């Protein structure tokens, strides 16, 4: 019989008590793990938000947000057929609006195709274009007879790389296909900026400018600089996606969950400490026996630490199971209580944007809607609801493993104190009465 076998045996000596201790540990460990998962998930989300959409500024001519002020998109004719049948869209079939003011539309009942001239390989909200086939347009500041087509649009018109089509009788070649996620966004094509300006007969004009700031913290300064350079009477500088408050309240969720993780971890350590101190006191005489027959202090100490670890291992197994069921709920609960204000803000802003978009005759769709970073922007909650769903999904086994490692670390510390107490017990304890 080894020290380990004895420790396992001792852990099960009093089955009712063991069950109670394991249950207590499971609650503490489960809570710790759930908090860690929530923390990691929210942390990752905050980083993602900061990195992707939180740093974009949109500059529009003064007087209208979300669309070229007082200036409707130019309507052009094309050989292309729209990828989206407007029959199913009811009243949404409206004149199209291109961000650079270049639009080709067919006079049939289908959603207009949006053509946009771009000065870089980015979409209308400043996100990098995902080219799925072919190449980009190379120099976006030079005229070019090449175009990028949305995947669904290309499919609808049986176009592949190298195929041609016309806009206002001018022939363009398909250089590449892009996928912007939502179907609406793919019912679009991109030209280089000078080409679009030429085709739309609006040389030198820009309908909007997307400025990506290098960090969340520089956003205010960049906005102020842009406003003073362009003049507030001539240009509206808006934060592409005002997720700052969402990010900061998510940041506090992150902090709260971390504190809760540490507290639950500490509780698990304390449970171990108390139960082991109790066990050492209870087995004083037995420890005396072990010493009387020549057990070294370290063997006895090790036996108690191992016994504590057996209890923690069982607590962790049950706790991890509890956490895997509970962490989703806990994360959502944490986020929904902490982001109520954010959600409200988002809703308000969403409505404002929807209004702006409607006024400008925007066909909806993610590409035209900076609020959602590729989300269906019809959802007024936008980013916040996306957070709720994606946060719970990101509990990785690595995080759970790290959490359990931390639990074991704390358990060893908790068990070390009573284990060291055993060294002070004298072998003469064997002669004391029960």
């Amino acid at each position, binding site marked *: 019989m080894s020290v380990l076998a004895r420790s396992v045996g001792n852990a099960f000596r009093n089955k009712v008590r063991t069950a109670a201790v394991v249950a207590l540990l499971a609650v503490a460990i489960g809570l710790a793990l759930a908090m860690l998962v929530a923390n990691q998930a929210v942390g990752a989300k905050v980083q993602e938000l900061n990195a992707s959409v939180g740093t974009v500024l949109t500059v529009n001519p003064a007087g209208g947000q979300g669309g070229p002020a007082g200036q409707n998109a130019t309507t052009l004719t094309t050989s292309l057929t729209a990828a989206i049948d407007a029959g199913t869209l009811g009243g949404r079939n409206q004149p199209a609006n291109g961000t650079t003011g270049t639009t080709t539309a067919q006079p049939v009942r289908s959603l207009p195709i949006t053509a946009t001239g771009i000065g870089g390989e980015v979409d209308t909200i400043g996100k990098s274009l995902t080219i799925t086939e072919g190449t980009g347009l190379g120099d976006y500041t030079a005229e070019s007879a090449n175009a990028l087509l949305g995947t669904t649009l290309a499919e609808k018109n049986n176009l592949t790389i190298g195929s041609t089509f016309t806009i206002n009788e001018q022939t363009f070649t398909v250089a590449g296909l892009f996928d912007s996620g939502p179907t609406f966004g793919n019912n679009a094509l991109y030209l280089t900026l000078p080409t679009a300006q030429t085709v739309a007969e609006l040389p030198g004009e820009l309908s909007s400018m997307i400025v990506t700031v290098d960090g969340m913290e520089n956003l205010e300064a960049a906005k102020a600089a842009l406003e003073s350079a362009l003049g507030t009477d001539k240009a509206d500088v808006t934060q592409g996606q005002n997720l700052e408050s969402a990010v900061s309240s998510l940041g506090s969720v992150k902090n709260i969950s971390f504190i809760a993780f540490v507290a639950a971890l500490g509780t698990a350590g304390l449970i171990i400490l108390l139960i082991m101190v109790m066990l050492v006191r209870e087995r004083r*005489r037995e420890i005396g*026996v072990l*010493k009387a027959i*020549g*057990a*070294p202090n370290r063997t006895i100490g090790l036996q108690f630490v191992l016994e504590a670890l057996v209890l923690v291992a069982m607590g962790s197994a049950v706790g991890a199971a509890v956490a895997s069921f509970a962490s989703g709920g806990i994360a959502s609960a944490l986020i929904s209580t902490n982001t109520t204000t954010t959600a409200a803000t988002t809703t308000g802003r969403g409505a404002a944007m929807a209004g702006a978009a409607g006024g400008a005759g925007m066909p909806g769709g993610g590409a035209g809607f900076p609020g959602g970073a590729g989300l269906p922007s019809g959802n007024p909650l936008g980013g916040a609801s996306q957070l709720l769903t994606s946060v719970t999904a990101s509990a990785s086994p690595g995080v759970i493993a790290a959490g359990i490692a931390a639990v074991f670390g704390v358990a060893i510390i908790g068990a070390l104190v009573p284990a060291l107490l055993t060294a002070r017990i004298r072998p*003469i304890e*064997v*002669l004391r009465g029960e």
Partner: protein
Amino acid sequence: MIEVKNLVRTFNSGDRTIKPVNDVSFVLEQGTLASIVGKSGSGKSTLLSLLGALDKPTSGDVVVNGVSLAGMPDGKLTEYRRRDIGFVFQQFNLIPNLSAMDNVMLPMEFAGVRRTERRQRATDLLEQVQLDPEKQVRRINRLSGGEQQRVAIARALANEPKLILADEPTGNLDEQTGDHIIELLSSLRRDHNTTILVVTHDKALANKTDRRFRLQQGRLTEEPARALV
């Protein structure tokens, strides 16, 4: 050889001091079978615990084969208990949730004896104290007092100690089993030159020992041969 020099152990109980071991001195040659008799509460167990390094004397010293226990560090005392001493406790002090076999193997585990050897030796010892094979694997708290006593004796012999200190080793045994245990201890002295000191109320046992001591109110006196008859 064990030399006991002016050994004193005092306890403070309340406002008065008791001296269960009061200036005790004697010398036992290696291979001696000796006994201590005395009334209940006369200090026999206390004296034995001092010899077995379970307790430290208030004053005086125990010298085992020329090595003094006084001033020996705790680690060395543990090693002394593990290697040189076999202690049979009056209350047995077995580990209740382990089997008889595991209890006997425990001191060998602490001494670093290999697993297969531990098992073999424990089986032999339990056979020698006449414990049925079926009871060898039973948990201690499911054995009778006499059976537990025999397991305690087997455990004391596990590491082939030079000195066996046995506190009432036959107290719970019938005459026949008791005689057998005495026979076992005698054979150890004969075959392994083991020194054995037994505390007993059993006059028959005492009479079979080479030397007999009597403890009275902490004072040790040696009885001449046959004085206990």
